[in-house]
């Protein structure tokens, strides 16, 4: 089923537009990866879809209903979770408190959801009383994604989840993201580690100067010579 659809998005940070008609779509149970050169508007597109910056033209549909320029807190209550690239944890809160904050918008018993996150990231259970700011980069990323999972999202949006991680941790993170998809959650992520990301992607988009350049299955994009030359470092 069609989960998210963003059509012909134009917008930016107030000055000149950065996005010039970018479009994406995400279905249930799939990982969608957005790649592209620096400044292509990948992160901007994520923010525009999530309502963090103004969409000047175009529309965003979620489960078929328009949500263009909806405020972030309403996105959360509809089941869309977003993990920014940086500053994505509450450093002075413990791991468990970070996760609890993720569920703030939803009332009710959070225990089962906490258990679900701990089953995806067992390390977080061991360290749940630890202050999140004192953890390693990989662990912080787990906390950030775990916090987003606490709202029981139908759609998870990740902005460069593997930035700054060691190769081993990158593998592990992608493995977890597959696990999340297998829970029935649609995942859309922006990635610099394009090859690895496309390898686990069901579908992918290549963005250039704020608009779609290519879209195909992850495997096809990886096999596309033009894409490989331009964006995947040969």
């Amino acid at each position, binding site marked *: 089923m069609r989960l998210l659809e963003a059509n012909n998005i134009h917008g930016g940070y107030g000055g000149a537009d950065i996005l010039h008609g970018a479009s994406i779509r995400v279905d249930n149970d799939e990982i969608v990866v957005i790649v592209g050169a620096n400044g292509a508007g990948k992160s901007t597109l994520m923010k525009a879809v*999530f309502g*963090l910056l103004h969409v000047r033209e175009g529309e965003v549909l979620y489960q078929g209903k328009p949500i263009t320029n909806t405020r*972030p*807190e309403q*996105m*959360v*209550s509809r089941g869309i979770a*977003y993990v*920014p690239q940086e*500053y*994505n*944890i*509450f*450093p*002075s*809160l413990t791991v468990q*408190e*970070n996760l*609890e*904050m*993720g569920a*703030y*918008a939803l009332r009710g018993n959070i225990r089962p959801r906490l258990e679900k996150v701990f089953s995806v990231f067992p390390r977080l259970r061991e360290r749940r009383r630890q202050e999140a*700011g004192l953890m390693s980069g990989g662990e912080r990323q787990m906390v950030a994604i775990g*916090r987003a999972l606490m*709202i029981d999202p139908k759609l998870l949006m990740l902005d460069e989840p593997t930035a700054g991680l060691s190769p081993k941790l990158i593998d592990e993170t992608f493995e977890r993201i597959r696990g999340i998809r297998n829970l029935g959650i649609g995942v859309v992520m922006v990635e610099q580690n394009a090859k690895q990301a496309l390898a686990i992607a069901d579908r992918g988009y290549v963005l250039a100067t704020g608009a779609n350049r290519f879209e195909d299955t992850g495997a096809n994009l990886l096999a596309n010579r033009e894409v490989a030359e331009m964006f995947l470092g040969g």
Partner: protein
Amino acid sequence: MYILVELLQLSIYGIVLGSILTLGAIGVSMIFGILRFAHFAHGDLITVGAYTGLGFLMMTNAPFWFALPAGMAGAAIIAVLIDQTVYKRIRRRQPVILLISSFGIGLILRSFVQIIWGPHVFSFPGGIQRPWLVWELAIIPNHVWIFLAALIIVTLLHLFLTRTRVGKAMRAMSDNMDLALITGIPAERIIMITWLLGGALAAGAGVLLGLDSRLTPTMGWNILLPVFAAAIVGGIGRPYGAIAGGMLIGLAMEISTLFLEPSYKPAVAFLIMVAVLIARPHGIFKGAW
């Protein structure tokens, strides 16, 4: 020997003053943590809290301790009203605009106190107390009550911040406002609760300060500088640091009277603050909240 007794005696006063400063400084620190501005009306909020408590006692003839919850409730409501009518409208501009606005709000509050209660000096009922003699030290019963009351208030606040959803959300907002919004934490409601707590804590400081000495329209303004000093020494934006900062400033102010005129006490607090600002701009105590 005499000097030791004197030092211990002053330390008792210092802890009492530190308890009062702590309550004010935690509020300043919380407001700074979430709204990123130094709230210059906080001293006058302290005054308003003390007088509200006094007003409640005058109207109801209730025993003294009712002044504490009554003043806290009154100042909490007033703080929220100020935020909703004034600060909220200018929150999106530079934080310093809020600062100058709060300076004006402080003067307005002080003037209302002068209009309603006149220039007279008031005291809470209780009269002069005979001190308890412990070893060589004279301990005034009220000082013990002030310390215990502050301890209870701080403990309750600690439980609130670490055990409740809203308390944790306050800490989260102070940590990372953008992420809090993305997470779906309702910022406006949390800001309102911050003002409720800040106002209540200020009133706690005010009532206890009034119990320790007297009530005057400038009582809060006069301790604003030490309150800021306590908040900054503890690392502004970090309420737990404010406890240590409050005690340190309170002790330093009282002990300084061994060799300085007592009227220079606020200047002592100020000098420590400046020294800390220069040496450790983020406060001397590590950790966040």
